[in-house]
C-alpha cells in the first residue's frame, strides 16, 4: 500500500499524463485494492520442486534395496518423462530468440524433469555401473542433455544447471580419470587450471551467443558463471608460495572490472573490484606489515577504492 503513489496516480491523471484506465489501475494497486501473488507462487513452485526432489532422493536412498532397481529406475524415468511431456505440450515453437513463458510453471516443471532425469541416470550408474570407473562421463551426458533442453525450451535456470554440471564433470574427471595426464602438478593446481579453462570456455560461449544471435539472452549466465569460475579458481590459490597466483587474480579482477564497466554490468564490476582488491591486499600482506601496517593498509586502501568507486559512479550517472 502506498498513499504517495495513489495520490501521484490521481495527480498525473488530472495532468493528462496517464489515461483514465492507467490512473484507475495504478491507484488501485497503490491503495492495496489489487495485490499480485505472482512472486509468491513462483517461490512456492521453486521451493516445492526442491523439496520434492529431496524427498525423491531420500526415497531412493532409504528404499534402495527393498524397491528393486528396475522399479526405482522406471519410476524416476516415468516421472521425468511426464514432466518433459508436459513441457513439450505447452512449449511454443522453437526460436533462437527469447520466448515468452507459456505458463507460470513451465520453467519449473522443466527443471523438475531435468533433475529427475539426472537422479535416474545417477541411480542407474550407481546400481548397474554401466560406465564403470569412467562414470564421470555421465556428468557430461547430463550437462549436454540439460544444455539441449535449456536451448529448446528457452530456460536460463536449466542452462545454468547445464553449465554447473559441465564444470562438475571437469572437476571430477581431473581427480578420477586424468591422474596420469595431470601428474606433473599437484591435484589442487590441476583443479585450478581446469576451473580457469572451463571459465574461459564459458566466457567464449557467452561472447559467441550475442554476435551469432543464438539465445543471446543466455549470455549473462555464461559470462557470470565464467568469471566466477576464473576468479574463484585464482582466489583459491591466494597466499601460495609464489606470488604469481595473487598477480593473476589481480589482473583477472582488473580485467573483469574493466569489462563490466564498459558493458555497465554492475554486479560483475563489483566482483572484479573485490577480487582485485583482495589480490592486492594478499600481495601487500606478503611483506608481513604487522597488525599496525595491516590496519593502516586496509583503512587507506579501502577508502581509496571507495573514492574511485564514487568517481566511476559520477561518470556513469549522466549516461
Amino acid at each position, binding site marked *: 500500500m502506498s498513499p504517495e503513489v495513489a495520490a501521484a496516480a490521481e495527480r498525473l491523471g488530472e495532468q493528462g499524463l496517464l489515461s483514465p484506465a492507467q490512473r484507475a489501475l495504478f491507484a488501485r494497486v497503490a491503495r492495496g485494492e489489487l495485490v499480485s501473488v505472482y512472486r509468491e507462487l513462483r517461490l512456492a513452485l*521453486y521451493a516445492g520442486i526442491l523439496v*520434492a526432489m529431496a524427498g525423491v*532422493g531420500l526415497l531412493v536412498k532409504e528404499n534402495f534395496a527393498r524397491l528393486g532397481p528396475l522399479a526405482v529406475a522406471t519410476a524416476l524415468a516415468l516421472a521425468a518423462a511426464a514432466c518433459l511431456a508436459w513441457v513439450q505440450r505447452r512449449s511454443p515453437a522453437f526460436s533462437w530468440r527469447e520466448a515468452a513463458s507459456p505458463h507460470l510453471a513451465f520453467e519449473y516443471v522443466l527443471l523438475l524433469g531435468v533433475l529427475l532425469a539426472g537422479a535416474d541416470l*545417477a541411480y542407474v550408474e550407481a546400481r548397474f555401473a554401466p560406465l564403470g570407473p569412467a562414470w564421470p562421463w555421465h556428468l557430461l551426458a547430463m550437462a549436454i542433455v540439460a544444455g539441449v533442453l535449456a536451448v529448446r525450451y528457452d530456460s536460463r535456470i536449466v542452462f545454468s*544447471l547445464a553449465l554447473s554440471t559441465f564444470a*562438475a564433470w571437469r*572437476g571430477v574427471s581431473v581427480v578420477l580419470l586424468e591422474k596420469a595426464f595431470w601428474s606433473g602438478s599437484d591435484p589442487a593446481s590441476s583443479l585450478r587450471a581446469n576451473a580457469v579453462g572451463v571459465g574461459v570456455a564459458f566466457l567464449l560461449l557467452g561472447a559467441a551467443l550475442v554476435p551469432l544471435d543464438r539465445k543471446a539472452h543466455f549470455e549473462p549466465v555464461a559470462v557470470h558463471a565464467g568469471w*566466477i569460475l576464473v576468479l574463484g579458481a585464482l582466489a583459491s590459490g591466494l597466499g601460495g608460495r609464489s606470488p604469481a597466483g595473487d598477480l593473476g587474480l589481480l589482473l583477472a579482477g582488473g580485467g573483469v572490472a574493466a569489462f563490466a564497466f564498459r558493458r555497465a554490468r554492475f554486479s560483475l564490476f563489483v566482483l572484479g573490484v573485490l577480487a582485485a582488491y583482495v589480490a592486492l591486499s594478499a600481495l601487500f600482506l606478503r611483506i608481513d606489515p604487522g597488525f599496525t601496517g595491516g590496519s593502516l593498509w586496509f583503512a587507506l586502501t579501502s577508502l581509496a577504492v571507495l573514492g574511485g568507486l564514487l568517481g566511476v559512479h559520477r561518470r556513469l550517472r549522466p549516461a
Partner: protein
Amino acid sequence: MRPDGAEADRRREVRAAARGWRRASAIDDATLAAIRASYPDDRGRLGPAFRSLAFVLTALALNAAFFFVIAVADPRGDAVGILALAFGIVLCALTEVQIGLLKRAEGGIEAASAFVGIAYVIGAAGWLMNEAHMPERTLVLAVLALAAALLAAAAARWGMPLCAALAAGAFFLLLARSPAGRLFWIAAAAAAAPLLVIFGDSPRLPPVHRRSCQAALAVALLAFYAAFNLWSWDHAFVESLGPGRAPALKDSSLRPLAMAGTVLIPAAALAFGIRSRRRLFLDLGVVLAVASLVTLRFYVHVAPLWLILTAGGSAAILGSLAIRRFLDSGAGRERRGFTAEPLFEDLSRQGALETAAALASAPSARRVPAEDRSFTSGGGRFGGGGATGEY
C-alpha cells in the same frame, strides 16, 4: 527524520512505482520522463551493486582505522571503551551529516557508518560496564536496552528498516530475560501488532518509516508465534534465552494453549492477510504454517520423511498451480483483489536468484562409491551435477 528527507523518500516511492509501470510497458518513455521531472530526486543514491560494495568498503575502512588507532595508541582498560565510544559517536554524527547536509540516501556509505557507529557505541558501553565490574545479568540487560533504544532511534532518524527489525529483536531479547519472558513476549507482541499495522499504513509517515513499522511488526509476529509454538514451549526456548536454568514446561497445564497456538496463529495470519490483502501477513502466514507442519512432524511421525518431503513439495507445486488457475478464472483475472499476474513488480532479481541457485547447488547426478552402493542425491561441493571434486 528530517522533513526534506521524508519528502525525498515520498518522491522516491513515486519514481520507483513509475519504473515498475515502465517495466511492465504500462507507460512509455516520455511519460516516465515526465513523471521523473514532476518528482525530482535530490538525494545521492547508488544502485544495489555499487551500494553493497560501498557498504563493505566503508565498514572495512572504519574498522581498520579504529584498529590502527588501537595499535598505535595501545590504550589499556577503560581507555579502550572510551575510545570506542568516542569513535561510535563520531560515526553517528557523520551519518547525520551525510543524510542531512550531504543529502545521501541508499548510498551504502551512510548505512555502514550508521551500523558500525551504533555497534561501537553498544560494544563500548558493554566494555565499560564490564570494566566497572557490573554483574553480568545487569550488564546484558543494559546492553540490550541500549541496543533497542539506539537502533529504534536510528530507524526513526535515518529511516533504516533493518535497524527497526534489529531494535525489535533486541527488545524481545530484553523481555526474554525477565522472569515471565514468554508472557511478556505475548503481551508485548499483542499490544504492539495492532499499532504497528496502523502505523505501517499511515499516510502521515514517509514510506521508509512505514516499512520500518512493518519490519518491527514481522519481528513481533514471529515472537508471538515463538511464544506459542509447541516445540518452543516444550523446550523452553524463550526461557533459555534468559539467565538461569530453563524451567520444565512440558507438564504444564497450559500446554494445550501452546498446541492451539501452533495451529491457530498461522491460520489467523493467513486469514487476516487474505481478508485485508496484506502481503506481510500472507507471507508470514505461509512461513508459520510450514513451521507448524515441521513441529507436527517432530511430534507425530505420520509418514516417513521421504513421503512427507515428496508430498509437501508436490502439494506446494499443485497448490500454486491451483491458486493461479483459481485467480485467473475470475473476472479480469482476479478474485477478491488478488491476481496471479505479475503487475508492476521487478521480477528480474528473483529470476537471477533462481538461476544463481541452480548454478551453485544443482542436484543432478552423483556416483555412489563402489564399496557403498547406497544412493545419495544432492549437489556438488562446487558447481553442480553432484560433483564430489572441488574447485
